[in-house]
């Protein structure tokens, strides 16, 4: 195939993915226990006062925020996953390899499981404050983990060391959390467990804006480094010999992906699977390993996969939606397995 044709094919594919994402967005806003006609949706989004007030409430307070959270979370985790897979040259790497989810989980565990279960303790009060308290705790926890990772990344010379530090931090933190669960009362343990299932629901608009800001910054940072990521396919030394500033590229990828993972985990809980799987899907769809092409495709596909997962979660069980992590694992894992087994021409 000529290079011209190949470039056109990539552009066409990206256009197609965008169109598909747009369609999913529309479905996500209109479908549900109450079906909203497309025409009404348009006028609601434009803020026309004549539209049905019930529809308005459903769209503005339930479906739109949830759709946006799912879209942002899917895009963010997938972009972070791609960055980590390239940086560590490891197909199993994902947005959480650096232990950011562990930090967020610890924060949430501390407030929901609050040691000693004294109902008057400050932590318990924050915990009772439900959503906002959890969000705050997860953000502080994720930021703490991000700080540790950045400190390590600034000091050590090898990618592998960073990976090991992230892994050890995760183990250590899950030990702490295990201890907290052991001490906690059954109800609070269950509350914590529900948080770990992940959810796009009930996110207040302010934290949605915060998420959007963090995702924008994180994705832009990674996007600026696509050339360096291409070079890293050959290994660190070769990348350096091609004139790439490997140290700052690594720094940018680590900070960018940790920020993305932290923002998503703080907002929706630790959403598994999407971040590891979507980059592979993207390579398969685009049939390329050039990041200028992979990054936009990964972002689009990540958003689409999250929206589909959300639709399945909602569509499956009436008023109480299935947890997102249940959906991504139950549907995603077999799908990816089929993909990997059938992919003769390109394997890791």
């Amino acid at each position, binding site marked *: *195939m000529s*290079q011209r044709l190949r470039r056109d094919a990539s552009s066409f594919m990206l256009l197609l993915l965008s169109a598909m994402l747009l369609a999913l967005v529309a479905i996500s806003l209109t479908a549900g226990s109450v079906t909203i006609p497309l025409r009404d949706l348009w006028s609601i989004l434009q803020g026309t006062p004549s539209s049905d007030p019930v529809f308005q409430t459903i769209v503005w307070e339930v479906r739109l925020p949830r759709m946006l959270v799912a879209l942002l979370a899917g895009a963010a985790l997938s972009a972070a996953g791609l960055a980590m*897979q*390239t940086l560590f*040259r*490891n*197909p199993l790497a994902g947005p959480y390899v650096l232990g950011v989810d562990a930090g967020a989980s610890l924060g949430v565990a501390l407030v929901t499981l609050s040691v000693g279960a004294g109902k008057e303790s400050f932590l318990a009060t924050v915990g009772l404050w439900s959503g906002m308290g959890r969000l705050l705790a997860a953000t502080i926890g994720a930021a703490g983990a991000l700080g540790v990772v950045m400190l390590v990344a600034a000091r050590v010379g090898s990618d592998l060391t960073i990976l090991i530090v992230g892994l050890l931090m995760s183990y250590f933190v899950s030990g702490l959390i295990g201890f907290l669960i052991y001490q906690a009362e059954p109800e609070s343990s269950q509350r914590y467990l529900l948080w770990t299932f992940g959810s796009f629901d009930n996110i207040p608009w302010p934290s949605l804006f915060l998420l959007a800001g963090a995702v924008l910054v994180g994705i832009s940072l990674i996007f*600026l480094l*696509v*050339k360096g990521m*291409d*070079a890293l*396919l*050959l*290994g660190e*030394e*070769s990348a*350096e*010999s*091609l*004139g*790439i*500033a490997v140290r700052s590229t690594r720094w940018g990828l680590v900070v960018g992906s940790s920020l993305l993972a932290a923002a998503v985990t703080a907002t929706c809980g630790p959403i598994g699977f999407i971040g590891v799987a979507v980059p592979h899907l993207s*390579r398969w769809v685009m*049939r*390329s*390993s*050039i*990041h*200028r092409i992979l990054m936009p495709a990964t972002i689009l596909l990540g958003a689409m996969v999250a929206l589909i997962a959300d639709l399945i979660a909602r569509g499956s069980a009436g008023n109480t939606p299935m947890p997102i992590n249940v959906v991504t694992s139950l549907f995603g894992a077999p799908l990816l397995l089929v993909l990997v087994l059938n992919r003769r*021409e*390109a*394997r*890791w």
Partner: protein
Amino acid sequence: MLPSPLLSARNLAIGFSPKQTLARDLSLDLLPGEIIFLLGRNGVGKSTLLRTLAGLRAPLSGTISYGSQEIESLSAKAKAKYRAVLFPTQLKSPTRVRELVSLGRLPYADWSGQISRHDQEEIDRSLLAVGCGDWNDRWVDQLSDGEKQRVLLAKTIAQGTSILLLDEPTAFIDLPQRMELAKVLKRWARQAGRGVILSTHDLDLAMATADQIWILESGGSWTSGIPEELAMSGTLGRVFESPEATIDRATGRLIWCQTGGPTVTVIGHGPWHDWTIRALIRAGYQIHDRSEVVIRVGSSLEGASPWSLSIGLQTEDIRSLAELLRVLNQKHPA
């Protein structure tokens, strides 16, 4: 007058720290059109020297210049446009041949890695130069080791530099492909006055191809020269000889040396004579002028028995080399 060198090093010391110096006082020149082989036992610092010459690792002392410019004054990008480096590379991500080769043009790409039409032509040319002009869409992970090495070489050539620094490019590839690789490199260097430095353990290839050989010895000293001089002066022998192997001064080849085996005398001439000697050495015999065991070798395979074996007064005709070894092993075991 000699042309001015593409790369020169003066009083170079390399290593990890002053306490861990691998080699010192290296003064080397790479001239246009030259292909230089860097030899030495494992761990003497061949890779470190290549990385230092590439400007990826600071020398402990001394200077390196690309043309007339010292490398400290060059940016990472300027270096990437003057020299290309090929390290032993393991590719982890599935990539097509053309995409992989296009990575060589990254020093010329914009921030996103986008390259121009001119870059695409350079990629075409380097694919042709290594003889894989129609491999564009093949997947790199489905190539053999030798093919992969050719593609990586194309990536390195595509960088459009004046010099190539190659770290063990011949490891893992078979003999004909090594020859092929050496030929491609030689042509590449001669065509436009470019230069190649490559490290290898392949002494035969170095003797057959190198314009110059640089030898790093353990202990940090080094020697350079053309292959024949190094063989004649015994330098090759000093570096590579061990109790098990010796350098044949006539050919510059590494041969097994056996001590303490029984002696045989071989009489005759021509290729059959030479091959008989090789077989006997391999089987553990020592060739001696006056042994009680005498083997006569005919000059051709005409006649039923080109070999005859005499032990004392007893003489026996023998039809093949394999039979000779068998009979000898029975009557006069090594």
